């Protein structure tokens, strides 16, 4: 593993561990790994069938990850994108090219735990080959300052029979300003599941757009989001699915909880079909935490605050 054993690496590995990541996976040879702080690649580990190319930019890093045709990566590939300083800007331009019949699972951690004013731009392109599978779970750890400005953008293409699961989770620290923009094009018999879980507090502003274009026959996709907003947080979710071909199946599932008089939520499911054999459905709910759920837990001895935390923890798991 070509690792720069700098203090930075150790520091980011330490934060990675504290935030729930398996830091041993950053060191061993069984796991593919890539560790970035600011615009520096602190370490990477390429495993058989997976290649990582990278180039440092003024404010970030350009990364290309290739998984070869027919290769099934056994262990999760760990990605760690961090900004240890309190202020700055990080731009990550990433490409994931997953070969035909390949399979890979990525576990990404984005760490801005010292942030006072950090901008993080994550601009990704994903191409999943025929009958290939890719899973990408991205967990964010932010400071409590609210000074994180995070803009994850993803454009994806899933080829015939390919499968993609993507989860974005931000439940630790303040969301700050967050603007998620995902759009995926799906070929025939492909499937995609987008899942977003965010806990907004104080004056956090959260915008989410999840969009699926079901272009090939029998393509299926779900765009699911769970957003909890407290204090004066604001959340706006657009779940969008277009059934453009016969026998496509899509479902938008958005659930936003507001807790606190100043919290505001907007949810817009936008569904359309261009083929009479396509079927796209949606469910969207905005509301307070159920009185019955709260009172059940309070009748077991929890305070209202403890009950709210318990319910939210489940909802955002």
């Amino acid at each position: 593993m070509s690792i720069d054993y700098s203090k930075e690496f150790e520091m980011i590995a330490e934060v990675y561990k504290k935030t729930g990541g398996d830091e041993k996976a950053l060191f061993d040879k069984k796991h593919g790994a890539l560790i970035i702080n600011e615009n520096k690649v602190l370490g990477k580990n390429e495993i058989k069938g997976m290649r990582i190319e990278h180039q440092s930019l003024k404010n970030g890093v350009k990364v290309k990850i290739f998984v070869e045709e027919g290769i099934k990566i056994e262990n999760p590939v760990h990605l760690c994108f961090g900004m240890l300083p309190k202020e700055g800007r990080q731009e990550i331009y990433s490409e994931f090219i997953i070969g035909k019949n390949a399979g890979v699972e990525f576990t990404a951690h984005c760490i801005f735990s010292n942030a006072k004013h950090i901008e993080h731009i994550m601009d990704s392109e994903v191409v999943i080959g025929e009958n290939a599978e890719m899973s990408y779970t991205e967990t964010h750890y932010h400071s409590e300052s609210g000074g994180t400005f995070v803009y994850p953008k993803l454009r994806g293409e899933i080829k015939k029979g390919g499968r993609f699961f993507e989860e974005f989770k931000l439940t630790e620290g303040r969301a700050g300003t967050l603007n998620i923009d995902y759009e995926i094009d799906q070929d025939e018999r492909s499937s995609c599941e987008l899942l977003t879980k965010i806990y907004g507090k104080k004056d956090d502003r959260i915008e989410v757009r999840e969009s699926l274009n079901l272009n090939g026959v029998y393509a299926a996709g779900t765009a699911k989001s769970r957003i909890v907003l407290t204090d004066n947080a604001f959340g706006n979710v657009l779940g969008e699915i277009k059934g453009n071909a016969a026998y496509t199946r899509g479902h938008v599932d958005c659930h936003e909880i507001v807790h606190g008089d100043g919290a505001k939520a907007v949810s817009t499911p936008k569904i359309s079909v261009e083929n009479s054999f396509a079927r796209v459905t949606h469910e969207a709910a905005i509301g307070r935490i159920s009185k019955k759920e709260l009172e059940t837990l309070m009748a077991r001895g929890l305070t209202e605050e403890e009950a709210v935390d318990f319910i939210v923890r489940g909802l955002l798991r």
Partner: protein
Amino acid sequence: MIMRDRMLELRDVHYGTGDKEILKGIDLVIGESRIQSIIGVNGTGKTTLAAIIMGLNGYRPHRGRIFFKGRDITDLSITERAKLGITLAWQIPASFEGITVKEYLSIKKNFTAPEKALKLVGLNPNLYLNRVVDENLSGGERKRIELASVFSVKPKLVILDEPDSGIDMASITAIKKVIKNFKKMGTSVLLITHSERMAKVGDTVSLLCDGKIVKEGNVKEVTEFFRKYCRECDHIGEIEEEILK
């Protein structure tokens, strides 16, 4: 019954919404390790009574007081009452997205181990601990898990609101056994039901009609009265003195 044996006591409890009076002067005493059934047809105030005793939001007596082990709890919150040892299992239990049965049964410190609580309600821990407490559980499973949750907090008094509604016969048999186990463990039970079969689990039964307890005492006597006069009831609020005699 001497004062210290009284787990729960309601004295002249009145409650209503708007112009409608729902509870019209309830007097009720439940002793330690006793099962007290409250039977009544729909709309007589049974669930409201449960809510008043648990202290749910919006349910405070307009008149009268509630005592728990001699302490006046009328103005206490739900959590404060729960910490004293009172808990409630709803007729239709709540769902909790993303929460496993194990977590749900471990919400309080010093809880009964989830495995033990599940066994007590006749559920195999290996099959249920990692399931999520949501709509994927059947009505009977959810009811039993609710009872396990009640067990887990080791209450002194449990209020069971229609524990037999909407479930199969096998689950009803299991739930009756669970209620008797509460008693064996020293927990008092307020069993609210519209079923005379379930009411018979009680040591004593009170008949609630139009917000008043109109008859109480011997299980056989009260449940037979209920079967004869109340199941086809057409005189709520107009019980004639001769019938009650």
